């Protein structure tokens, strides 16, 4: 879990880890440095889900590398969601489907930037459950940016705070 004031650099950190911005320092995934694999493979395995999802085609299905109806169902969507038109989606629906299309890639690491910011408590619970189950099943890691102390208490194994350009680890028991 990561927290910190707005403009502290949380998003920049996640973007650098996804290798979207030029950065210093070395990234390794299971001992393979990022520069030893194609950028496309790195980003599919270290998948960044931004706080505002973007959609470039008309239908939901066109944004999925592989159709994953069961992922969408566990986020509370009916099975025909892949046929829906993107422009009819609410912001909360977009946010959940953006998580689903990322999970469909079966990444080893998830970088989640406030994934429950626009969601009601029911859907927040669905997202938290799905991500936790995914991590257990796939043995994947998550870096989760959250402003919600309750959420951090529920989910965090470790907690870092970014402030004044520094990253500091907090005791997860006192978020």
């Amino acid at each position, binding site marked *: 879990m990561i927290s910190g004031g707005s403009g502290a650099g949380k998003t920049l950190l996640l973007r650098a880890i996804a290798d979207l911005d030029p950065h210093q320092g070395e990234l390794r995934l299971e001992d393979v440095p990022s520069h030893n694999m194609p950028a496309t493979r790195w980003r599919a395995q270290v998948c960044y889900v931004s706080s505002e999802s973007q959609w470039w085609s008309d239908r939901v299905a066109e944004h999925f*590398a592989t159709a994953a109806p069961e992922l969408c169902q566990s986020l509370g969507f009916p099975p025909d969601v892949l046929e829906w038109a993107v422009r009819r989606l609410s912001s909360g629906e977009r946010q959940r489907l953006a998580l689903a299309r990322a999970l469909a890639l079966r990444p080893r690491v998830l970088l989640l930037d406030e994934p429950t910011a626009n969601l009601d408590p029911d859907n927040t619970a669905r997202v938290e459950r799905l991500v936790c189950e995914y991590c257990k099943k796939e043995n994947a890691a998550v870096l989760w940016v959250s402003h919600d102390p309750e959420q951090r208490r529920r989910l965090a194994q470790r907690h870092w705070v970014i402030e004044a350009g520094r990253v500091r680890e907090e005791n997860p028991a006192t978020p």
Partner: protein
Amino acid sequence: MIHLSNLDLAIAALLVLALAFFAGRHHGPLGRQILIAGIRTTVQLLLIGLVLKALFADARLIWVLLMALVMLVVAGYEVRARQHRRFTGAWGYGIGSLSMFMSSFTVTFFALWVVIGTDPWYQPQYAIPLLGMLLGNTMTGVSVAMDRLNQSAWEQRERIEARLMLGHSAREAISHLRQQAVRSGLIPIINAMTAAGIVSLPGMMTGQILAGAPPVEAVKYQILVMFLIAVGTGLGTLGAVAISCRRLFDERQRLRLDRLREA
């Protein structure tokens, strides 16, 4: 061919003055802009008339090449000037100039050497006007397409990066912008070919007919020129967009909008 006297041109110039006067009264700076453009066209064309006269009298390859180089440099400058967001450094000038050079010069050389078969191949009466028409049209295609590509990449940064985040390649992530850019660069010449002879009589052919050439000969030259322009514009635009698309990303396929600067 009926010779135009200076008086004839002066009468036409009076019409432009009248236009500038009326436009200026209601639309402020527009009148001044019309006047300046009118003066520029007079001076520039008179000068090029003198240059061509000297060039035709002393048709040496070195002079033709020098003239061609000047035209290319100016065209490259114009392409850069018409872009709202241009690449920083030498790329801003280089991408447009290189792709125009590759397309216009190759197509002109091909037309002179293989199609028309002038002797020598660089005979300036053919080489300079052909290159001029090709460069002029290619310049428009290249500048419109590059402007469109850079501007839309800037506006759609989040969408492009969203695709990169899902493991798409740079090529996939920018493919739809690339298509639009090439399309907008090529629409003018496609329209010109479609409308030629029905809606509009192309300028080159009109000029030849006014100068007394038989219409069917003029038409044949116009068809040749249209085809050459289409190929030149097409290759130049495709080339410029391809290089720009590469330059918009780095070796790790990151979108690098920091390589663009607002004009």
